[in-house]
């Protein structure tokens, strides 16, 4: 069995394009294509899984040309995508979706037996009768992998497993991938992290065209891959300081996606709430900011009870909220930059009088904000994030909530963002960061809370905790009060 991509060029609209990309793989290969956000790996994935057709070049499977017009066509040809967005429809159980795949026995019992056998063989814990939306991210990933196996796929295209799996789970997925390769399958891993690429036998790093670096470059290549991918965390100076009193206190918060959360953010401390990707992170952030209604619970900012306050009321009390790059950044796409910069102030007497906006003052305020933060114009997407941060911290809030503040940023830009966060901490403000990057949470936080399925699964001192332990809590393998099981592991 061979798969050949010969000089393909793909430019699908949502992905950065790739040009003249070639690759040749045969049975038993576990191959990683590594690259950051704009490298073009998404374009190769899209072409291979039938999301778009290459504009030039050809794809050959066992010597026959492949023309994949849809995802279903790719699955029918034996190419199965795993981990991409929207592959498991909400409202249907994993088993129902398994039966909808081409080549899978329609009879419920047969499909169930096939899935259970695979789960037993690789010790995958998965409730195949549960609706897809209630499964944790990692289980959704393994559910997709099982679907591929039951379908009898020959090629598995794994999309960014690091987004959905903890390090321990990545290890498990790698072991399954190696077993599948030993059975003659081809495994292609598309990743944004160098360490994940290096777990595969062969890899290449992509930058818009043919590989710029590959495993054939020898041991030197591995180190260069790390530097090339810029996935290593850049150290940021963090001064020791005494933690102050409680700034933001949430007690028994309940709402859509949040079950029963109590937490505190203290002055002069960066608290990170970490967990696997899921809707509960956004739900919690929006609940704290007043964008989502609370079913139960109390919220205090300093001495004030702000439970019933509106978004603006909370903001005027000193609670800031900044969604990260993947969440819109509080930056309206159709509005001018000056209008966006004034979004936290346009209703104050500084920028309006008797309902009339002071347009000149609005422009001057934007200019000053950009100048003070040394942001050049025109603003790039990255600059906009920093401009949004500047807007949110003018004046300094008592407590600032940040949702995924560094997602999709280069390591340099992420380090810049953390420098800004630490400057808030130096000013004795409380910072609450909600993220799905466990590695970053452990490296940057003063205190880490782990979120699992809408509940706080544990609280950790980052200096005394390993990434594996954090991963166990984030994936639900371990819960608060279940120490014995973890010790056994």
């Amino acid at each position: 069995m061979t798969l050949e991509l010969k000089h393909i060029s793909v430019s699908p609209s949502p992905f950065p394009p790739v040009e003249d990309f070639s690759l040749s793989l045969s049975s038993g290969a576990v191959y990683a294509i590594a690259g950051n956000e704009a490298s073009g790996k998404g374009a190769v994935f899209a072409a291979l899984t039938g999301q778009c057709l290459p504009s030039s070049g050809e794809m050959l499977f066992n010597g026959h040309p492949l023309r994949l017009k849809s995802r279903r066509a790719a699955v029918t040809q034996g190419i199965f995508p795993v981990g991409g967005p929207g592959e498991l429809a909400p409202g249907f159980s994993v088993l129902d979706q398994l039966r909808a795949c081409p080549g899978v026995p329609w009879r419920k019992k047969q499909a169930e037996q096939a899935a259970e056998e695979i789960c037993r063989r690789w010790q995958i814990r998965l409730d195949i009768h549960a609706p897809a939306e209630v499964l944790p991210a990692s289980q959704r990933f393994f559910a997709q992998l099982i679907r591929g196996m039951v379908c009898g796929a020959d090629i598995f295209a794994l999309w960014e497993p690091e987004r959905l799996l903890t390090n321990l789970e990545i290890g498990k997925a790698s072991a399954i991938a190696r077993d599948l390769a030993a059975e003659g399958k081809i495994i292609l891993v598309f990743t944004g992290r160098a360490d994940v690429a290096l777990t595969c036998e062969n890899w290449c790093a992509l930058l818009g065209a043919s590989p710029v670096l590959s495993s054939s470059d020898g041991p030197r290549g591995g180190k260069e891959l790390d530097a090339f991918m810029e996935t290593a965390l850049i150290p940021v100076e963090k001064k020791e300081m005494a933690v102050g009193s409680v700034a933001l206190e949430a007690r028994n918060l309940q709402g859509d996606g949040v079950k029963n959360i109590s937490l505190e953010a203290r002055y002069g401390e960066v608290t990170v709430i970490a967990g696997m990707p899921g809707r509960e992170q956004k739900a919690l952030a929006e609940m704290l900011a007043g964008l989502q209604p609370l079913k139960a619970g109390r919220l205090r900012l300093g001495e004030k009870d702000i439970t019933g306050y509106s978004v603006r009321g909370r903001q005027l009390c000193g609670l800031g909220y900044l969604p990260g790059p993947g969440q819109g950044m509080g930056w309206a796409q159709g509005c001018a930059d000056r209008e966006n910069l004034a979004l936290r102030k346009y209703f104050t007497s500084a920028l309006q009088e008797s309902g009339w906006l002071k347009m000149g003052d609005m422009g001057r305020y934007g200019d000053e904000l950009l100048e003070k933060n040394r942001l050049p114009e025109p603003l790039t997407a990255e600059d906009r994030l920093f401009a949004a941060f500047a807007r949110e911290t003018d004046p300094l809030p008592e407590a600032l909530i940040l949702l995924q503040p560094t997602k999709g940023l280069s390591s340099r830009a992420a380090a810049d963002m953390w420098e800004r966060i630490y400057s808030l901490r130096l000013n004795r403000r409380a910072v609450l960061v909600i993220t799905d990057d466990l590695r970053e949470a452990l490296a940057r936080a003063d205190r880490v809370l782990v979120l699992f399925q809408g509940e706080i699964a544990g609280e950790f001192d980052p200096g005394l905790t390993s990434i594996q332990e954090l991963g166990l809590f984030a994936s639900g393998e371990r819960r608060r009060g279940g120490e014995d099981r973890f010790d056994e592991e």
Partner: protein
Amino acid sequence: MKNNGISYPLRRLLSAAASLAAGLSAGFVLMVFIAWKQQGSLAAGLSAAFHGGLLPLLTAGWKNGVDSLLSSAAAVMLLGLSVSFAWQGGLWQLGGPGFFALGALGAFFGFSLGLPWYVCFVFACAAGALGGVIPGLIKSKGRMHEGYATALMNWLCLWSVQAIGKSSPFPEISPLPPRWLGWGGALALCLLLMVFLKCTLPGFEIHLLGRDASVARWAGVKEGKKALLILTVSGMLAGAAGGWQLISGQLTALPGPAFALTGLGLHGLAAAALALGHPALTCAAALLVTLLSSGAGALDQNLFPPETGEGIIALILFFASILRVSAHFMREGRDKA
């Protein structure tokens, strides 16, 4: 604000021109097809469609003078502005004809009481605004989509007004206000709306809601209250259109459900769609739609059925909507990227 090197206002103009060209081309093809069947040959069909169809469609509206064209366009401008204003706030207002009918009923009521025309016009605006308040409340309190709420209100108003119109004698309207007041007032309202959206606090919040509702919520804009304000103003504008039509003597009976499918209701929507919701462009597009509508009456009656003209306006609306929807999806794709 630029995208692919083309400024946003220019893109608006280009998209309006493209929908107009596409609608007229499709309409011409339709006319050629009709004429070809009747004349027997393609060449004769082409010639007949051009001389008896397209040419009068584009030129006949001018024959009665610019003043007449502008007077006829006043109500279309107001109806278009009503839809455009709602679009500026990100809402779909599909109740224009119903609010128009309510406005006409308001003026009708005023005349029945023997009040002067300007008081009747205020009655018309108030009736239209009242029509807008109801879907506004349903949207803000009941969380129902404004498209459904306004569409349901539309039919409710049209049927009710028709029932009232049948049972009451149509009053004599005199003296008539000056004709220029209609289009002059519509242009003044357009300017007022632009200033409101650009320079005032509630206008800025409406503008923000229309651009990005999630960011508006994040900035603390109260979506429900703004929806109520938008639909009330929108209803008032449509009511003003109905009132003006009655006051200026262009309406000889209260409008009923048939009005929603043909006539001004469709024209207002087409003008707003062509202008992509921009108030000033809406007025220009309303003029163009009125020109086509006047021209539709001059088509060769032996060749083309009377519905052809309205059909072509519907085609223009169709292409304008396609462009609007495709622009929306293109923007979504770009945001995801």
